[in-house]
């Protein structure tokens, strides 16, 4: 298999882009990426484009967005396909792009992921996202993703002793990073006094799905991100502006569609398996990870995912947060971008955005105050459904 590297990254400012067309937003990220790679003028030489999107048909009443983006960018006749895997669509598209390059089918692949969720109201967005749940057993019973997040958090609290204050500590850490990230949706820091300890915290940080509060859940976000993959062993690899960051491992796994069919609903088996496969492919282990971008749609998931991929002992991740180990200057920084909590979660684009952050950190290009010190290896976990389809990516600086 060929070695696959990332030579370009692009990102829109996450937030509210609902006045724009999804094709434009995807094209913006793609253009940003191709400029970064120094390949914008040669874009018709790209062998393949994959566009990740979860539900533009419902959010925007628009389908076939890969074709739309190609035309917006004047890239015909480059082949382009859409990849859909719920909120893990982004990393799935990177995985498919990796497979195309590693197999020798393509030398240069552009992967773009994005979503415009704010075309609809917040409760409609929650409903649309919930359509990925099991129709009869979950969705029709009124379950939503925040509902699952709340129940999962309650179980975790009862089993491991996590408190609501611990959840707030994760949010404070994420917002501290996100406030310095020019691409983040919510660039506002928050304090533990204001959202957990103070007399007004109950109202300022109100419940969304008890015990999850506003500062335990990600915002509804528009945005897009893009990466340019290249065959590092091909001559063309030397024709880009920046040195490639190698994709050392990429793997995915699935779990039961119905959460109640799992032996232990607190175990995220797909996360564990995807992580193990990615480590094996990279020839690395949890101890080699310099920092991680984990899918904290609800902050409890940052903790649970970090345990499943072996970064912390089971049930102990929140203790590391208390000690500040996951802060930007801690032993193992997690979500230096601000994570989904602060940076935002445009579902189809999140997995690509996470990998963009891996590359940005490994290049040393993050803003002052949120740049991880001398990182060598970064890991991302993109979480689909309530853990039923998960993709892990490991990137390494050569």
């Amino acid at each position: 298999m060929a070695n696959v590297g990332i030579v370009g990254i692009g990102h829109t400012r996450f937030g509210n882009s609902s006045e724009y067309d999804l094709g434009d937003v995807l094209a913006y990220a793609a253009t940003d990426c191709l400029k970064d790679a120094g390949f914008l003028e040669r874009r018709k030489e790209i062998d393949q484009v994959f566009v990740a999107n979860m539900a533009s048909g419902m959010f925007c009443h628009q389908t076939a967005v890969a074709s739309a983006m190609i035309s917006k960018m004047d890239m015909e006749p480059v082949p382009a396909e859409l990849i859909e895997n719920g909120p893990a669509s982004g990393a799935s598209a990177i995985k498919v792009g990796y497979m195309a390059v590693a197999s020798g089918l393509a030398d240069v692949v552009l992967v773009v992921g994005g979503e415009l969720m704010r075309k609809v109201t917040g409760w409609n967005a929650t409903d649309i996202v919930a359509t990925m749940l099991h129709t009869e057993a979950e969705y029709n019973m009124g379950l939503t993703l925040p509902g699952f997040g709340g129940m999962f958090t309650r179980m975790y609290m009862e089993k491991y002793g996590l408190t609501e204050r611990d959840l707030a500590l994760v949010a404070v850490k994420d917002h501290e990073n996100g406030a310095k990230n020019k691409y983040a949706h919510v660039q506002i820091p928050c304090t533990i006094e204001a959202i957990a300890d103070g007399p007004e915290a109950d109202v300022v940080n109100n419940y969304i799905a008890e015990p999850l509060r506003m500062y335990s859940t990600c915002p509804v976000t528009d945005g897009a991100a893009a990466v340019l993959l290249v065959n590092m062993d091909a001559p063309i690899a030397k024709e880009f502006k920046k040195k490639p960051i190698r994709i050392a491992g990429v793997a995915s796994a699935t779990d039961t569609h119905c959460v109640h069919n799992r032996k232990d609903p607190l175990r995220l088996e797909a996360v564990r398996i995807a992580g193990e496969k990615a480590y094996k492919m990279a020839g690395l282990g949890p101890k080699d990870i310099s920092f991680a971008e984990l899918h904290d749609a609800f902050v409890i998931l940052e903790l649970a995912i970090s345990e499943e991929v072996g970064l912390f002992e089971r049930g102990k991740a929140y203790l590391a947060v208390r000690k500040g180990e996951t802060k930007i200057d801690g032993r193992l920084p997690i979500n230096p971008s601000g994570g989904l909590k602060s940076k935002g979660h445009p579902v189809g684009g999140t997995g690509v955005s996470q990998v963009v952050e891996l590359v940005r950190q490994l290049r040393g290009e993050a803003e002052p105050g949120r740049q991880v010190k001398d990182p060598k290896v970064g890991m991302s976990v993109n979480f689909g459904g309530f853990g039923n389809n998960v993709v892990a990516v490991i990137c390494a600086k050569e």
Partner: protein
Amino acid sequence: MAIDAMEMKLRPPEAELKPYPPKLITLASGEKMVVREARREEVGALLGTIYPLIGVPADFYDIVAVRMYAEILGWYRYRVANEFVLVGAIDGVIAGIVTSRHVSPQLGMSLHTLTIKRGLRVGAQLFAAKMEHHLDVLGEEEVYIVAESPNGFKRWMIEYQLEDRSALYPEVRHELGGVPTFVLTRPLWDAVRSIKCTGSRPISDADLKTADKLIMPSEYSQLPGFKR
């Protein structure tokens, strides 16, 4: 200023309204927001704050801003009966404004809520303060409320579970054009007060002093590139 006979005819009758006791709210960012009644002499800062938003169609800022501009001008020039204006200020900088009107001892008429500083639920806090003034301070039994934007509908109609009286139109109608009228009743307020309304009282002189002079914001997230 001498008020001539014609001007007296133009002015509505005014009831003596109890003042709103100022309070302090610590926002999620840790910033301290003073919530207090605006004073008549502060109308320049209020109107100057609102004016740039009249040109922002996103999230219906334009309609809310232009209507609030008129309401505050009407209050300043004595053309609206029993109106009150509450303001939220962070280090004196105006973060949000609400307008409302006392109709009778039983009824309040909520006018508009304008969030200047976004992302910290400033509007939600100020709306709650407005309801607090109507029901807890002025002692009214219910408040008529309408929404002119999806954000408003979600924040008030859905989150407060307001009583929908739109079927009683035109007997029950809000003053803002009679659009579907929803009502915050005292039992509904009693049910949500603890989760919607907050703030510390009494406010210290030092904290109150931070908002003694209202300052117009120099930047707006709603208007990228705007500088005052």
